[in-house]
């Protein structure tokens, strides 16, 4: 029987993001999973499904490796991979199992070891072959990265921000730098962020250039980290303690989309349409509009990306992202605080953990447990991630009424 009482987050946690040289992927996953179970007040033996993501570890089945450390109960494990949306995909997998009525409790875990990984995507260019021989779907006789555009993420997302500027105007190097300034300023209140240092706009603009207009401090930080969540059916939640019910956070919408075909989408990734589609579905599922949101954690993998998602998530009117940012709306004291965690640019981006960690941030505020960075009286929040390829996860979360 499908579960009609909704799905809730019962427990959720994230490790500190940063360098964890003494811990491996399984250690970090175990820290997050045990933390989430403890936060939920349940045990591994209660779980009916485990969904786990670890994108770049290269190992086999992080879910089973985790079970071998914290509890082998014979439940189904789904090891998932969806680029930077891997964590959201793991959560959504657990949510779907509970929603389908297959179980009452599910556990989702995302973990990554990335400290010192350097530039992601884009392989080292080898010496050209001895004879020019066409290979692959483009019949290329030589490596094309750097010869026909760029494969690097900072360069791809730089173009995505620039394309928005071309379409609507108003963007500049300094504007993008000021978005990074905001997120770094926010990070000073987040003890779990990899970097907690405020930078001036000048410092950001004069930092090492990676891919104009993105300097180093406008790029997400590679680091280690894990996050995990326990989800529970609404009917089961009613049988739990009042304290568990009070701290539970309602998943009012859980959506995953991919990009529909459009002209150019196979030339430069289109991160806009699938995000907008996910947002439309999420607002409809939740019966909530963007104006109702008390905070938003969105996928600022680069400063150039944050701008376009103001528009894609409909936080502003179409084409109005620059004015929206200029109004101060997205600072923590603004009308729609965005990335009060510090965002990926300072909190860090351990890829598979990101899509659960952003939900932890929102839950932390909805539960009133965010300490110095608490957004007062937060009732509704949205978490967004996008993985190139592409996949977009959007979750709308609401404070318990109990």
């Amino acid at each position, binding site marked *: 029987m499908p579960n009609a009482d909704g799905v809730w987050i019962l427990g959720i946690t994230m490790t500190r993001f940063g360098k964890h040289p003494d811990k491996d992927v399984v250690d970090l996953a175990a820290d997050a999973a045990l933390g989430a179970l403890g936060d939920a007040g349940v045990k591994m033996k209660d779980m009916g499904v485990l969904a786990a993501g670890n994108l770049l570890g290269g190992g086999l089945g992080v879910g089973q490796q985790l079970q071998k450390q914290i509890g082998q109960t014979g439940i189904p494990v789904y090891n998932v991979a969806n680029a930077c949306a891997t964590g959201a995909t793991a959560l959504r997998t657990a949510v779907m199992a509970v929603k389908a009525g297959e179980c009452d409790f599910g556990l989702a875990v995302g973990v990554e070891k990335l400290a010192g990984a350097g530039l992601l995507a884009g392989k080292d260019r080898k010496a050209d072959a001895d004879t020019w021989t066409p290979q692959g779907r483009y019949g290329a006789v030589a490596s094309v990265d750097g010869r026909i555009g760029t494969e*690097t993420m900072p360069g791809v997302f730089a173009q995505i921000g620039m394309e928005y500027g071309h379409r609507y105007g108003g963007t500049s190097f300094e504007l993008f730098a000021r978005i990074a300034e905001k997120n770094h300023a926010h990070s000073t209140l987040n003890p779990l962020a990899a970097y907690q240092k405020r930078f001036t706009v000048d410092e950001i603009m004069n930092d090492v*250039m990676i891919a104009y*207009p993105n300097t180093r401090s406008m790029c997400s930080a590679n680091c280690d980290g894990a996050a995990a969540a326990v989800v529970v059916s609404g009917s089961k939640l009613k049988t739990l303690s009042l304290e568990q019910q009070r701290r539970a956070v309602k998943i009012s919408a859980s959506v995953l989309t991919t990009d529909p075909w459009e002209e150019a989408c196979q030339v430069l990734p289109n991160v806009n349409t699938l995000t907008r589609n996910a947002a439309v579905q999420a607002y409809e599922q939740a019966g909530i509009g963007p104006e109702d949101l008390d905070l938003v954690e969105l996928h600022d993998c680069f400063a150039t990306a944050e701008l376009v998602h103001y528009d894609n998530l409909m936080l502003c009117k179409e084409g109005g992202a620059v004015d929206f940012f200029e109004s101060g709306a997205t600072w923590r004291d603004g009308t729609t605080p965005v990335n009060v965690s510090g965002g990926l640019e300072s909190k860090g981006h351990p890829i598979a953990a990101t899509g659960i960690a952003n939900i932890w941030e929102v839950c932390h505020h909805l539960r009133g447990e965010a300490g110095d960075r608490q957004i007062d009286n937060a009732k509704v929040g949205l978490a967004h991630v996008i993985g190139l390829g592409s996949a977009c996860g959007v979750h709308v979360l609401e404070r318990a009424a109990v």
Partner: protein
Amino acid sequence: MANPVPIVDYLVLDGPGEGGVPQYRAHLVANECAGCGARYFDRRNACANAECAGTDFAKVPVATSGEVKAFSIVAFAAPGIPVPFVAALVDCEGTSVRGNLINVDPDPEHVSLGMKVRLATYPLGTDSAGTEAVGFGFEPLSN
């Protein structure tokens, strides 16, 4: 000497340019879906437009001039890739093309959104059989 080979199969070399080697007259070709007109540069199994899903494609020439819709000046790339270079998305009269901007200084003073560009080629080098490979990019129209 063997005929030069293009860096990718969607670059078609039309012979030496007026200015002589290494510039070639060239154009790009796309695989155009017979059903809906969607254009692709890679080898196709079927059309990705869900409304169409056609499997018939024809090679069509792509306009050789266009407008820069987006760019990034890449200063940091994987080892072995010379930097800086300008990665760009060029709107060639309705067909979006990925390519580097070439024959222009890679800095924000010389590269801008909306700038008009045209297809240009450059030599990639010669292999052990003496065959030259030819790359492409887009250069400012008003050079």
